[in-house]
């Protein structure tokens, strides 16, 4: 390489290095983009929010709120974030319209009032005769083009971004903004010729439209420049996708399914990272929440292109918190792009489309006729009450799908991880409210005898050790089936069952093994390392107690250290106590059932609601009905239900584990 060229190369390299390392890039690390499906979005444009609404809205992954909420209900926004730390909250603002009565809405809409007050007459879009143009009743269109007269050296397309930055985003309550009115042309929305430069003459439509588009782009660009850490989205303007972090497609499937999917797909490619493609389907202003097919169709279609999805009343009323069973289907990450299964894909040709995810799949029938879809394997329908006929939990390898419908299906569960269970039993799966969450199944490891107690410890989503208690013997195997420990906690001659639990008792990131005798021992709890070394032992009930105990380990207070929950076994009262890992009594306990009940308890602990703190789940032993109770870490009853027919008094065992890997554990019930 010639000497001159070498020097140039070095200079180029150094400059590039500096640019890459020094120049600031948009930092969106605080806001993790959801990668699992489904992604939910709510277009909620009420100007005030109650705490109840905030709690409801907190379930969504992305919520669009009117900018006035920051003034009227800032605590609601904070509550939403508190309940759902990963939620994305965008402020809604119109890019080209302003309410004509905004001056009178100072109390409830101060931002609009201030905006209106800041708009000089010159900035309104007028007809050649000077009359203000309006698209939506009660609003005026603002001229966002560069041809609008400058007032105080600025135009609307520079004022608005600064307003958004200084008056909206500066509140710290928002992750970004969604600009409405992403019109691709003004000639249609203005309803007539427009005089962009106030010369009394109308610009040609094409010219006006071009200028309009440039004006919008300027608004998006300038907003991004002024608030590089904020998301900038727009509503229904795929033309501008490359200028924003994403856009919302309203009134799905506006323009036909194939066209919408094509635009959504394109927007997903063109938008700036982080990309947010939103789909809003609605009842066409009928308010029929129970139009499940329409809801599913939109949701399924959105899932084909990784879009966020919301279903509400319609463009006349965006203010519902309608929650559907499908929103809770934890399908996981997409495994591959969507594909058409009944013909050539083309450019999103109508037909049967399928997309597989880690824990299930979605199928969409965008064709004109119902079709029987062969799934190629067993899949489980959702369990839900919204559309009981569809969401009946049936496991099948085929599904009949009507036209303009979609179906979310889950891969059947087959193993229990993260909860101790008796080998060779049938497990039923509930949510904290007692609703059947997933179809139950027989769980058995052929490596161990029936009724051996097994526990597969899970850490960071991966299987770790397998702990097995068979008779008097406890063994621990690593993920490669190598034996880590093989010992007899209570001696080889011990005749009885051993209850096991595992948890990080000391907060060091590892786990300890906790055992107790199921039918005797007086509630003596033993703590071992996973290699079988005894760490400590302590009694949990009085010296007079000679029965057995059930136990669980879970982080009840969210401090990173698991507590030990101990319940009296058969013969003892339904007494439940909580200890720390060192054996110190933290909570003297309470009676999980009527004090006279002597069937013993089964206990489990796990985070059922994803708040970082485990709940205590209790099941009644023999003699009691299949009664499950859920308590918080302080003994407050949160919910209860019967897991089987109430007259069945064989008793149950319970477990808690996040089988669906969605951050919320399920209640597992094992019949005795």
């Amino acid at each position, binding site marked *: 390489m010639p000497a001159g060229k070498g020097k140039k190369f070095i200079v180029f390299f150094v400059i590039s290095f500096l640019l890459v390392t020094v120049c600031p890039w948009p930092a969106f690390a605080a806001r993790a983009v959801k990668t699992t499906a489904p992604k939910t979005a709510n277009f909620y444009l009420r100007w005030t929010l109650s705490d109840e609404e905030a709690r409801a809205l907190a379930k969504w992954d992305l919520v669009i709120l009117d900018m006035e909420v920051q003034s009227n209900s800032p605590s609601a926004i904070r509550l939403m974030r508190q309940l759902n730390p990963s939620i994305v909250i965008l402020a809604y603002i119109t890019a080209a319209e302003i309410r004509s009565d905004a001056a009178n809405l100072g109390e409830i809409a101060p931002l609009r009032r201030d905006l209106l007050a800041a708009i000089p007459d010159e900035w309104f879009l007028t007809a050649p005769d000077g009359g203000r143009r309006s698209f939506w009743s009660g609003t005026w269109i603002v001229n966002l083009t560069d041809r609008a007269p400058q007032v105080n050296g600025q135009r609307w397309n520079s004022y608005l971004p600064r307003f958004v930055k200084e008056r909206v985003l500066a509140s710290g309550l928002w992750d970004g903004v969604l600009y409405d009115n992403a019109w691709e042309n003004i000639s249609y929305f203005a309803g007539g010729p427009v005089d962009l430069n106030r010369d009394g003459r109308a610009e040609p439509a094409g010219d006006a439209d071009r200028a309009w588009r440039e004006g919008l782009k300027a608004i998006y660009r300038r907003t991004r420049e002024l608030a590089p850490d904020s998301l900038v989205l727009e509503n229904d303007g795929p033309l501008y996708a490359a200028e924003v972090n994403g856009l919302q497609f309203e009134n799905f499937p506006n323009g036909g399914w194939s066209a919408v999917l094509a635009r959504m797909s394109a927007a997903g490619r063109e938008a700036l990272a982080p990309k947010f493609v939103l789909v809003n389907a609605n009842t066409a202003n009928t308010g029929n929440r129970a139009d499940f097919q329409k809801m599913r169709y939109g949701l399924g279609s959105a899932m084909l292109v990784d879009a966020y999805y919301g279903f509400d009343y319609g463009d006349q009323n965006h203010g519902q918190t309608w929650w559907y069973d499908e929103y809770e289907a934890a399908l996981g990450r997409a495994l591959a792009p969507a594909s058409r299964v009944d013909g050539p894909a083309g450019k999103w040709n109508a037909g049967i489309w399928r997309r597989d995810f880690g824990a299930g799949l979605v199928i969409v029938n965008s064709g004109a006729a119902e079709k029987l879809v062969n799934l190629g394997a*067993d899949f489980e329908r959702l369990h839900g009450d919204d559309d009981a006929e569809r969401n009946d*939990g*049936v*496991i*099948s*390898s*085929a599904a009949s799908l009507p036209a303009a419908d979609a179906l979310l299906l889950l891969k059947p569960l087959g193993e229990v991880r993260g909860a101790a269970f008796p080998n*060779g*039993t*049938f497990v*039923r799966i509930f949510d904290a409210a007692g609703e059947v969450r997933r*179809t*139950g199944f*027989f769980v*058995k490891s*052929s490596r161990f*005898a*029936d*009724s051996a107690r097994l526990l597969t410890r899970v850490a960071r989503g991966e299987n770790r050790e397998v702990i097995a208690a068979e*008779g008097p013997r406890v063994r621990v195997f690593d993920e490669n089936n190598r034996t880590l420990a093989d010992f007899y906690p209570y001696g080889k001659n011990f005749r009885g*069952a051993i209850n096991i639990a595992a948890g990080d008792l000391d907060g060091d990131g590892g786990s300890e093994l906790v055992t107790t005798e199921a039918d005797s021992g007086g509630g003596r709890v033993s703590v071992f390392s996973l290699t079988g070394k005894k760490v400590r032992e302590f009694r949990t009930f009085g010296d007079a107690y000679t029965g057995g105990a059930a136990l669980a380990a879970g982080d009840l207070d969210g401090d990173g250290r698991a507590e030990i929950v101990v319940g009296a076994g058969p013969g003892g009262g339904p007494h439940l106590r909580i200890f720390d890992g060192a054996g110190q009594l933290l909570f003297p306990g309470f009676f999980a059932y009527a004090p006279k009940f002597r069937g013993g308890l089964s206990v489990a602990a796990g985070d059922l609601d994803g708040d970082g703190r485990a709940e205590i789940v209790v099941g009644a032993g023999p003699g009691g009905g299949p009664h499950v109770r859920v308590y918080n870490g302080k003994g407050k009853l949160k919910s209860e239900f019967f897991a*089987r*027919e109430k007259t069945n008094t*064989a008793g149950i065992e319970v477990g808690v584990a996040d089988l669906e890997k969605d951050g919320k554990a399920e209640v597992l019930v094992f019949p005795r």
Partner: protein
Amino acid sequence: MPEEKNNPALGKPGDRWPGKPAPVVKTFAEVLREAAAGGPGRPGNLGPGRPNIFIGTLNIFAAPSRYLTSPLARHYGERYESKFRFAKTFFAIDLALLAAALVLLVADLALFVYPGKVRVPFAAEIAIEPKNPRNGEIVSLFITAKNYGGELLEPRLSLHLPETFRLIDFPSAYDSAANSLALGTMPAGASRKVAFRVLALAPADEGTETRANVIVSLSGSTRGQLAERTGAKEIIFDGSVFSVNASLPPQVLLGDEFELPVSFKNGAAVPLGPLKLSVCPSGALTLASGSEKCIEATRSLLGTGESISAPAYLAVAGDYGETAVKLAVLLGEGEETAPIFGQTLRTMVVDSGATVTLAIPGAIAPTAQKGTLPLLVGLKRLSVGLKAENAKIIWAPESGEEKILASLTSEELADFIQKRVWRTALALPLPVNENGARLFAEMSVVRSDGERLKVHSVPIRLPATLKVEFQATARYWSEEGEQLGRGPLPPRVGQKTEYWIFWNLAPIKEDLEAVTVSAKLPAGVSWTGKETSGVPGAGPVIYNSFNRTIRWSVGNIPRAAAEQGISAAFAVLALPGSDERGKEMTLVGPATVQLKTVSGAEASASAPSATTALPLDARAKGRGIVQ
């Protein structure tokens, strides 16, 4: 007694009948005269009438001097005086005869007491050495022949030994065949001495002295007269050189059987034979074989120090009390057989008390199905005294039924064989309550001493009639509506549908030793490998693809677990062929359960085939026809 003296009512002393006339005292002659004259009668009569012996006797005590005359005087008076004129003569003759008889009597007595020495012409005397030999010992006989009279010509000596004695050594001149030993002419006053040595054998009972006589006869002529004199010597044995090794326990129990080893050792200095050892139980003891009275062992020649054995297997089958075994050793054969040794072993047959046991081997397995089952009763031991009356074996289940197996009369008892077996049959199941029944044998006997005895065997427990409720069901949905199965429902030709089969045993109130369930898979149905059971520690449900048999075995289920019910489940995959179209398809063939309780009862039950009809699956009902 002063009162007696002064009491005038009592009369004077001597008056025994105050107030009554004193008796008239008459002489005997007066009485006779009165009697001859038909007078008042015999003495003692107080007046006319029949003589009164009682009063007369009393009269003797009242006046004895009047009645007690000398016997001679009375005799003379009664016999002669009143009848003969020659009374005195005859009386004198009687007296003389009487005197002569008395003299003869006295003389005879005197001679008897003091016999005079009888002078004999010659004699033989025997001396033995040792003086008190033991049985089987060699004894020397020293015989001395003495001539007291004139010259004794051709004196010969003969020795007469007991049968069991054996001549060991004798003088050379002794002709053993003729039993004659010529001594040579013996002048007057001469004596000859000869010696014999014999093996002195004599039967001896334990503890009693055994004697034998050796006799020697000496014959010869003296003064032309042939005469023979004998001499004898009694040998009193003391002990025996022989020994028998045999002993009975001091007590035996009725019904006992045991071996009595008997061996006889020849302690004599010479071989003996032919010899026969016999062991003869008597009384309550018999030979166990029952067919012989004695057991014998023979030996043609038993050397010195050698032994002969005859072990006897004895049975105690008789009365209580003392019983014995007689041991005898006989020497010789045929008519010359003589016992040389004898011993009686004794023992007592005693009552065993309450240790009579009757055992019932074999298993009793009542089933829920009707039928009969042979029941073996093995009598291991009879230790009850059996007497002349009957002996009964009574079966007594607690239901109250009785079964008399045998009623033995006394004649039958005489031939009673040990370890007799009775067979009977019971109709099952027995009507017992839920706690079961106990079956035991009861024997009632009447002992020889009249005591009645009842003994029971160790009872065996008959469990309650096992109600085995067994169900084999197929499911696609659980009772709670959870989907268990996979695949199309109704099933379709050419497509696989998975069903779960449940084997359920209703609660059983027993400790179970083993439970086995089995069934076959029909064609078109395959094993998935998914299985589970509800019994802690139970083994898996296993499928044998070779014979298409599904099998589940579990053992040692305690009652507490069995009362919860026993169940297992497995999944099968049905792949209907076109032949099954329009029909219900069999998923699993009829299942059979066999169980055995710890107490030994066995039971079985079966369940019909499980089909795609799924009658117990409410959600799948009506969806069993293959499409």
